[in-house]
């Protein structure tokens, strides 16, 4: 093929193919905004300040992303904002109604035209400070009375252990959130993530918030690309052994990440905001062909959920990181493969067939990010069972020094085998069968699971 300056026609056509036929896109450009300077004992003033600051910094986010998307030919699916955990603003306003802050965030999101705003959050991994408990207790109301606000609670870290008092609260909070949004397919619970080792620069919702160690304002990027990886495996990995498969994944991840890096740099410059990180996570969508399950199946599994799934996912996750770190000077966030069941057509199919079970999903979360994600459970699941699921996932994250999370949606009024649909990127899926043997006493002991010995590295 004739060389075309430094590019060959094949190179150009391959990139176009990835974008147009394999769903390659930049999944999210997320602007992180610190609200620490918006704290005020007068809740009305605090809400006015945070609204003004978000709108001032993010008012050009959507038009700038649309222009970049048009000029570079790469779709940017979501434009979002992540803010300082709101519990930190509540500390100095003991009489404030936290829901008013959620509504101010929602209004700001509407004004700037983004589709989600994250940071209705509390970090309670070692204990509760002023504002934390009020924020957590207000989550069901806040998520049922807003459209775009996302919430997260960090209940554990490798360094501090797991705050089981917080874990014990979260089962009821998730159930109440689902109940209050039951007429909207329980969508509130899809906007609530319970973390262990939550990253402070995660651009992906629903778990994004702006950590206190971050700059005042920053741009973080989440890339996508399961379709491109699957296609590369189908075209270039025929007959290769698994080292060869890993190489193909690495090369594809490199290309995907370079696009994210470019978009981040250009967006940061255009908005006058420092570029933070590219999150290397392969994020699926419910669109056919944009599925992590398809990638695992392209490696040779009949259906995701089969024995071998955890090993294939470990290979994928590692190869994505190795390709990605070469492509970007600044990698962060979650950076792994996502396995949200309802957002991945292949996972939905495997769960409907009964091949992909909760126990296998839990095993998979030990080798990838982010955890039990977008899993629909029966509406009558006892709160303590949800708490225990959270504790198990947090333990996997704590011991393996990685992020894990739980985002489960109790389908109110439905039982295992029924179906729940959220629409859009959040997708749909079967209500999964779960083990309801009681962990009641364990959960209600409270206290803290101590940090593991390998946390003591100093």
């Amino acid at each position, binding site marked *: 093929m*004739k060389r075309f*300056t430094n590019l060959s*026609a094949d*190179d150009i056509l391959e*990139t176009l193919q990835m974008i147009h036929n394999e769903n390659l896109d930049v999944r999210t450009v997320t602007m992180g905004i610190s609200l620490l300077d918006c704290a005020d004992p007068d809740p009305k003033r605090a809400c006015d300040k945070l609204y003004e600051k978000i709108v001032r910094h993010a008012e050009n986010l959507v038009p700038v992303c649309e*222009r970049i998307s048009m000029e570079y030919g*790469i779709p940017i699916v979501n434009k979002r904002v992540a803010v300082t955990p709101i519990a930190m603003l509540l500390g100095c306003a003991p009489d404030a109604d936290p829901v008013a802050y959620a509504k101010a965030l929602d209004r700001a999101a509407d004004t700037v035209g983004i589709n989600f705003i994250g940071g209705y959050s509390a970090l309670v991994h070692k204990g509760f400070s002023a504002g934390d408990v009020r924020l957590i207790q207000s989550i069901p109301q806040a998520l049922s009375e807003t459209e775009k606000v996302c919430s997260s609670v960090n209940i554990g870290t490798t360094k501090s252990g797991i705050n089981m008092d917080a874990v014990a609260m979260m089962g009821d909070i998730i159930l109440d959130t689902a109940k209050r949004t039951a007429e909207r397919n329980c969508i509130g619970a899809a906007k609530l993530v319970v973390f262990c080792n939550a990253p402070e620069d995660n651009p992906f919702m629903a778990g994004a918030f702006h950590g206190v160690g971050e700059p005042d304002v920053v741009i973080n990027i989440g890339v996508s690309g399961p379709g491109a990886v699957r296609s590369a495996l189908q075209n270039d990995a025929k007959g290769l052994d698994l080292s060869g498969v890993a190489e193909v994944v690495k090369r594809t991840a490199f*290309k995907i990440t370079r696009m994210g*890096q*470019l978009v981040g740099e250009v967006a940061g410059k255009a908005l006058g905001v420092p570029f933070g990180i590219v999150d290397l996570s392969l994020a699926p969508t419910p669109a056919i062909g944009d599925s992590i399950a398809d990638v695992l199946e392209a490696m040779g599994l009949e259906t995701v959920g089969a024995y071998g799934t955890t090993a294939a996912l470990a290979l994928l996750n590692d190869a994505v990181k190795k390709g990605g770190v070469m492509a970007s000077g600044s990698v962060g966030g979650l950076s792994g493969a996502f396995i949200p069941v309802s957002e991945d057509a292949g996972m939905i199919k495997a769960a409907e067939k009964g091949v992909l079970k909760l126990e296998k999903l839990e095993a998979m979360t030990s080798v990838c990010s982010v955890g039990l994600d977008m899993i629909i459970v029966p509406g009558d699941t006892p709160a303590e069972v949800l708490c225990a699921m959270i504790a198990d996932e947090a333990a996997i994250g704590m011991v393996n020094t990685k992020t894990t999370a739980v985002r489960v949606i109790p389908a109110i009024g439905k039982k295992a085998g029924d179906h729940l649909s959220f629409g859009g990127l959040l997708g749909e899926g079967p209500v999964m069968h779960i083990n309801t043997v009681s962990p009641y006493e364990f959960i209600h002991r409270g206290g803290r699971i101590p940090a593991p010995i390998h946390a003591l590295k100093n």
Partner: protein
Amino acid sequence: MNAVITVIGVDKVGILARISTACAQAHVNIEEVTQTILRGMFAMIMLVTLPEDLTIESLSVKLNEAGEALGVNVSVTRQEIYDVTHKV
């Protein structure tokens, strides 16, 4: 600004002529042209330089008009997206 124009569709008389005429009218300089067959479809790729006052968006509108008349798919993007994905 450097950009890449790609034209994909069924081969027919006048594609190169029509697209390059549209470029000339917009004062777009064509640096290189290459043509190939992609899965049985005609694919033409042009590396071009845009004048300073022309945006990708307005060139795209003009070329899409020409593309529609020819029944081919035309896209215009900045060159950097290809550079970053194919150069280490």
